[in-house]
């Protein structure tokens, strides 16, 4: 059974209309060609659209196992577990009063105004219009978080999305709205129940109103037969501080598109990522730092440690609009090549239209430094272990910028676990 949209009857009319339009858009838009600059070094044909199917309602056994495995952070304010886009578990008793953290379908019914205003309002700019349309058309599940003015959510909100069944596709959605001076951290996990092929096409939109603090973590650990797509955007208002972190460990092909719009004076956006591809995994990452207001800062650090015949693509762009004076924008991509057949492609770009701008980008690709290795080996640490320590340190350098001990430890542990598979 090929993919087909299954419209929920309870959704408001405006949503149904958008979903219907999106489906016809998905069908008419061509598959991006490799000649498209946004798909350079990559290939949209990696997603087997023909063989994908709507994910079935999961068996209770599958749900039980998935819920039991949905344990990462010790402390959380709310936790939601979805299996095949169906809500399997949810707990939100720890949330401060007034904070909304509900499944997507509930948000559509109960918070229609906020949803109408903020739900998928931006144009895709990094090449995946077709897949964003598919997401909208197929969308059933996800999390909507609205934090009222001045409220800080103390512990993270943690969400798990599982996919089960051969060639099943899920379409998880995340929408976080932090009102003025609110603060919240949201963690999304994307996982497969088995080692089967599957597809996750996720969208995450973060809206930071003036003075808010939003931290968003996406951990992609799908099966190595699966494909994963993550389209995210951040809007940073005046003096808002936004942080997003991408952990790319799973899937044989993963693509992330991350856009940061700095729309308010003094806004800040940190964009971070760690990936550790093995075998013939492909990690394709596109970013855009869009400075629309003066005195804003954006800082991007993406690190890839490549093994075996894996491949990475990093394509980043900083644009500084007219009038966005006193912009500070930085973009760094580092590739650590640990095998003779790994391949790192970097396309770090800048487009500057304003004055009084400090901008830089840097990209390096190379092996583990011989000097660092020598230092550790001279202290009696065997070669293998020395390399492992260096690569972990390479990743920790990014992980530590998250600024939350519990999450940093969790991510470090996930990276270490993947490392163990290297043998």
């Amino acid at each position, binding site marked *: 059974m090929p993919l087909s949209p299954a419209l929920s009857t309870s959704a408001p009319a405006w949503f149904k209309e958008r979903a219907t339009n999106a489906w016809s858009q998905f069908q008419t838009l061509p598959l991006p060609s490799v*000649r*498209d*600059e946004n798909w*350079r*070094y990559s290939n949209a044909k990696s997603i087997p659209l023909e063989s994908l199917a709507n994910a079935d309602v999961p068996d209770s056994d599958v749900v039980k196992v998935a819920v039991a495995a949905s344990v990462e952070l010790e402390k959380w304010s709310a936790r939601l577990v979805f299996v095949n886009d169906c809500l399997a578990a949810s707990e939100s008793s720890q949330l401060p009063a007034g904070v909304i953290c509900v499944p997507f379908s509930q948000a559509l019914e109960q918070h229609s105004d906020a949803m109408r205003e903020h739900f998928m309002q931006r144009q895709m700019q990094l090449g995946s219009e077709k897949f964003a349309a598919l997401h909208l058309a197929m969308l059933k599940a996800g999390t909507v978080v609205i934090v009222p003015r001045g409220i800080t959510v103390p512990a993270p909100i943690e969400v798990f999305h599982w996919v089960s069944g051969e060639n099943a596709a899920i379409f998880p959605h995340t929408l976080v709205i932090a009102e003025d001076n609110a603060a919240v951290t949201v963690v999304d996990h994307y996982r497969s129940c088995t080692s089967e092929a599957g597809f996750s096409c996720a969208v995450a939109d973060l809206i930071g109103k003036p003075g808010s603090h939003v931290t968003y973590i996406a951990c992609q650990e799908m099966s190595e037969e699966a494909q994963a797509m993550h389209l995210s955007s951040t809007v940073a208002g005046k003096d808002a501080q936004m942080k997003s972190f991408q952990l790319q460990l799973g899937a044989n092909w993963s693509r992330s598109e991350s856009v940061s719009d700095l729309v308010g004076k003094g806004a800040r956006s940190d964009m971070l990522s760690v990936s550790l591809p093995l075998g013939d995994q492909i990690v394709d990452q596109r970013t855009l730092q869009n400075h629309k207001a003066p005195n804003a800062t954006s800082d991007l650090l993406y690190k890839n440690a490549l093994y075996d015949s894996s491949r990475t693509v990093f394509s980043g762009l900083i644009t500084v609009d*007219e009038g966005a*004076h006193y912009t500070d924008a930085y973009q760094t991509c580092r*590739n650590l*090549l*640990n*095998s*003779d*057949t*790994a*391949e*790192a*492609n*970097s*396309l*770090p*770009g*800048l*487009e*500057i*239209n*304003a*004055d*009084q*701008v*400090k*901008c*830089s*980008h*840097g*990209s*390096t*690709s*190379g*092996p583990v430094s011989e000097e660092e290795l020598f230092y550790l080996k001279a202290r009696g640490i065997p070669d293998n272990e020395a390399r492992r320590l260096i690569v972990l340190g390479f990743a920790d350098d990014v992980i530590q910028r998250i600024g939350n001990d519990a999450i940093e430890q969790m991510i470090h542990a996930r990276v270490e676990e993947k490392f163990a598979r290297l043998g």
Partner: protein
Amino acid sequence: MSAELETPDLSDIKIDSVGDFTFPENNVYDAGYGLSEKTIDYICDVKGDPEWIRDFRKKALKVFNEKPMPTHWATKDLENIHFDEFRYYLAGDRKPKKSWDDVPEEVKKTFERLGIPEQERKFLAGVEAQYDSEAAYSNIKAAVAEQGVIFVNSTEGLHKHPEIFKKWFGKVIPTGDNKFSALNSAVFSGGSFIYVPPGVKVKHPLQAYFRINSEQFGQFERTLIIADEGAEVMYMEGCTAPKFDTATLHSAVVELVALKGAKIQYVTVQNWSSNVFNLVTKRGVAHEEAEIRWIDCNIGSRLTMKYPGVVMKGRKARGEVISIALANNGQHQDTGAKMIHAADETTSNVISKSISIGEGRSTYRGLVHIPKHLKGCKNNTECDALLINPKSRTDTYPAISVRGSQHSTQHEASVSQVSAEQIFYLMQRGLSEGEAMSLSVNGFINDLAKEFPMEYSVELKRLIDLEMEGSVG
């Protein structure tokens, strides 16, 4: 008398059948407007090209017609080029006629202020044939010829030295490389052909404009330089001064071949007028332990697209691009470098500095490619951009592709302004704001300007001073 560009008049050329022309005797050659197989036959007949060149040109025309404009990555401004409105071959009397009186006042003033010798001014303004300034340099020519160096225009190279010419021509930049290399391959004329025998180190830089050449350094010139084993040569094109030209499309192809241990340096300082599309393909092949350096300075033109490249084909070959671009109002300097590593232990270095003034736009576009079967390759890329005014614009689009764990690449780019503090400091010491700005900009490119031969770097500084005038205050 104004510049005379007559409408095409082919009535005095008798055409018996396609490809069979008889020419009027006064050496007036004009291929007319537009581009077709007939244009190519005309060019071939006038130039007396051998059959293989005629075939080569016709194949190229086909490729040119088939290839789309590269607007999926390049600027849409390319769509404003109307190929039917150009004349692809002009020689003899049909060249635009100009007299010194026709040269615009501001151009004359520029010459004056650059301190260009009287005899060169006329050549630079396009009012006199370039061999008028030849006398001054004939000594160098004689000395070079004694060493066995061949230094002629490309047509002469093709006719007199076919054994060398044919071996390398079109090998570094194939016809189908891009739409504009195909265009050049179809209609090329002019340009230099240089062959330096093994072990010969040419002391003096060879320059494009003091060569005997009845054909103006053209819109579609084709340059081929071969440095045999262990040879060394430096070639300079353009002028130490602005190059004022009425052409609206300049599409050259430059191919360099550095055999084992050879060194080629290719220096360009060009200042086209702001209606010129300057779309040039330049590439060199460096064999074992050879070195190719492109030193490239682009000032002026409406749109320049130029990415000098080096294919490092032999072990320990080295490639370098040093680039300075200055974009003023209405100008877009889209420049960069291509470094293709095709052998072990090859190293490449790219240093690019660009300055955007007023509403000018400068773009760096780079490609570094290191495939997986190699080891010990290194690349370093640095691009710095300086923005002078609030409406100035700069872009950077590098692409770096590395396979394997035995290479290292680093790329760094920065964008900055001349700091207000620095200007204030200089103005405190009695400089005007404009002078302070000029001094700062010259400071920005100073370390690169040193790479140019002395007289070039002096001119470069003066050119920048001129461009900076009126950009502040």
